């Protein structure tokens, strides 16, 4: 079991209270606009508001005034963010009444131009990132960010359609995605299936545990645990393939092309 203790009393600002729009998307550097709705949060009016843009190791912070008086900085160029990438954003509300500033509210992992659709019942477990940085690679799994994402090569026309519905791509890539993600979870010892919507590990464990013939991951400290976990990962990959009948689809596709 892994649990968080919120000593700080920090409030989580839902993503649907924010809207980030990227500007100059065909040029470098990018710039952005953000709208923030603090109503009903009972935050001190004099608390400071900061907006941060980040992508992997690159990061920029912008001073947005206070909760009671938001002040948009004129220069919002994302000069320190890696070129060719799309940053995420976070909003921090900081109480500086004490000697040391304290984050009293935060919205994190804000994707630009995407209002979090809170009407959706489901949580999506794998994002797709269109990247120019893959060289000759078609795809790559990125687990360095806040949420698992498959990077696909933006240089390939129709890659969006391919990632969504090409049966060859689905059959050959997505089982391996499942394997890589579960390997990461096991290696990070993040096998607690108790749901925490902020943590993708637990969501993924619940997702694969519900696949045909898979079940909960083995945990414990006995000598065979590593082998048991490897077996569990392979059963999850098989379960995913079974659920989507990937072999049948791939065979059919191949037969059609040869015919």
């Amino acid at each position: 079991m892994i649990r968080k203790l919120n000593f700080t009393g920090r409030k989580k600002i839902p993503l649907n209270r924010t809207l980030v729009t990227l500007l100059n998307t065909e040029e470098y550097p990018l710039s952005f606009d953000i709208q923030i709705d603090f109503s009903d949060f009972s935050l001190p009016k004099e608390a400071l508001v900061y907006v941060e843009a980040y992508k992997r190791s690159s990061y920029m912070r912008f001073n947005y005034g206070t909760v009671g008086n938001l002040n948009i900085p004129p220069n919002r160029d994302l000069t320190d963010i890696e070129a060719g990438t799309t940053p995420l954003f976070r909003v921090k509300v900081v109480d500086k009444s004490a000697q040391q500033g304290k984050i009293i509210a935060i919205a994190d992992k804000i994707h630009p131009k995407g209002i979090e659709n809170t009407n959706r019942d489901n949580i999506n477990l794998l994002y797709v990132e269109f990247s120019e940085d893959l060289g000759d690679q078609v795809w790559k799994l990125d687990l360095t960010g806040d949420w698992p994402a498959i990077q696909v090569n933006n240089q390939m026309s129709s890659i969006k359609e391919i990632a969504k519905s090409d049966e060859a791509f689905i059959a050959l890539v997505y089982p391996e995605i499942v394997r890589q993600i579960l390997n990461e979870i096991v290696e990070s010892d993040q096998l607690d299936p108790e749901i925490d919507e902020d943590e993708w590990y637990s969501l993924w464990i619940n997702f694969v545990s519900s696949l045909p013939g898979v079940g909960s991951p083995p945990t414990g400290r006995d000598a065979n645990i590593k082998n048991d976990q490897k077996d569990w990962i392979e059963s999850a990959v098989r379960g995913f393939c079974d659920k989507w009948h990937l072999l049948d689809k791939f065979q059919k596709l191949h037969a059609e092309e040869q015919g």
Partner: protein
Amino acid sequence: MMVKGEMNADPIESEFFSIEHLDSIADALVRECIQNSLDAGLPGETVRVAFRLFTEKLERNGIMAQYLKGLHPHLTAEQNGLIKAPSFDTPESFLVIEDYGTRGLEGDPNQDDDFQVTTNGNMKNDFFYFWRNIGRSKKSDTDRGRWGLGKTVFQATSRINTYFGVTVRQSDRKSMLLGQSVLKTHLVNGNKHSPYGWYGNFNEHFALPVEDQSYLEDFSKNFGLKRRGETGLSIIIPYPDLSVEVKTLLSSALLHYFFPILSKDLVVELNKDGKQLIIDEKKIDQLLKHVDFSKSRMTREAFQNLFSFTRWVHAQSQSDMIEISSPSATSAPKWGGNLIEPETLSKLRDQFDKKERIAVRVPLTIRPKDKTPQKTYFDIFIERDDQLDRAEDHFVREGITIAGVSSLKQKGIRAVISIKDKALSALLGDSENPAHTEWQERSPKFKNQYTYGVSFLRFVKNSPRELIKILSKPSLGIDKNLLEDFFSITPPKSKGSTSSTGQKNSFPDDMIGSTKEFHLLRKQGGFILRKNPKATSMPKGVHLTVAYEIRGRDPFKKYSLFDFEMNKAPIKIIEKGATVKAVKENQMIAQLFSHDFKLEVEGFDLNRDLRVKIAEIEGK
């Protein structure tokens, strides 16, 4: 009759006529007739082309013998090139093609040389180039047909390789009749005859048209011509190929000329033995029911959707077009996102994503060799159709569809590429094959005529494919929902988490997690671990790992000695019913020996959130 020593050569013009992209001779006939008529169109008038097929025995029986009597010995000569000429005793059939709204075959019928200037100083002589010339068209650079070979389809359509032509000219309103038969070199009564035979009046061996009004009236009546003084050209084809039927003519007219029909520049009439079909902008859709789609490249639905789309195309005015940038005028043109302003590109991509129709104007500057560069343009129209299981693109040069040109690969996309401007039309026309179905880079009329000519050709030909690539290239960024079908989960209601308004959910305030064996509770600056009251057994021990929360990172991997050490102040461990066996850095192992054990750990920084990992140690 040939004279001794004259070169023996059989006509080969029909060999230039590739029907690779055409379904049949009827297809070639429709293309050629209507193309010629559109070229001869009078300004401001709708061109009308009527195809009338006569097959039934009517009171006209015997007219073939009447008008072809002199031809008969040649039709029956050996090695004349005919496979099996129909006898004049067989039921007579003929095809009449009449156009209206056109100027007719202008020019001096006495001219016998393409460098001869006529009495009115006009070098352009339709009459000469239609009747007396093969393969050396003097149509203007921008006319749709420029090879001078197209008219060979008339003789090719006739099973006796023969046709007549009656024209009424706009300039002088004169009517003229001439006929031609094209066979191979052959012998009649021991005399060698050249391939070309004529029907008309003769000045020695030079065939001149019949202009006698009374004769022409009889001729018109006998062959059912409807022209009553209107200017234009009527072609009469005796014994047409059996594949020439109303259905094949209809299918060809719809496929090759939907564009000018829907723009109301063209009306086609089909008639067989008095039964008539009119193909105009209003009726074109309902005529699809007469088409045999089993032999067509397109389905009925595809035609309907194409017509609907083309109506929209014709409704776009210049102000509706989105104009992109012209490629550089000093180098070979190339497609790329740089041709479209970012804001325009964003707008186009948005339209494309929403499956809205798109109209783009592409300006160009072409460079004919030894002439001033010319500004020109062409238009690309795109729509997405999910019902299309293939790509569909139509290149239309001044109303005629170039059937063999295609570059679009993406399924579900329909594109019409319209070239109306004369300068670009001339460049493309120069590259076309005689049947006007392909653009050929090595065409002798095209090669070396333009600087970067081949690049311009490819630029236009590849335009729909390249534009779709640019529009469908996804913007950089993240799509969170693309794979929701494969990778999503409906979470159960979470326990003990902070809700969106900052209020805690209704769970016991201090309980933050539980397993079968344990309950984990919060306390000021720390936590308490105790047995789950519902647990029926108790593990041997427990392994605790603690770390401060770090956003976006695994906190346990990011633990630092500078954060805290569990065996050092300010961290304090209080055990009851348990014995701490090992403590180091951020980890602790405790042995549990009582069911009411309680482990309390406190002293953590209240300004930081904490993460706790609890693992049971097996054994009794």
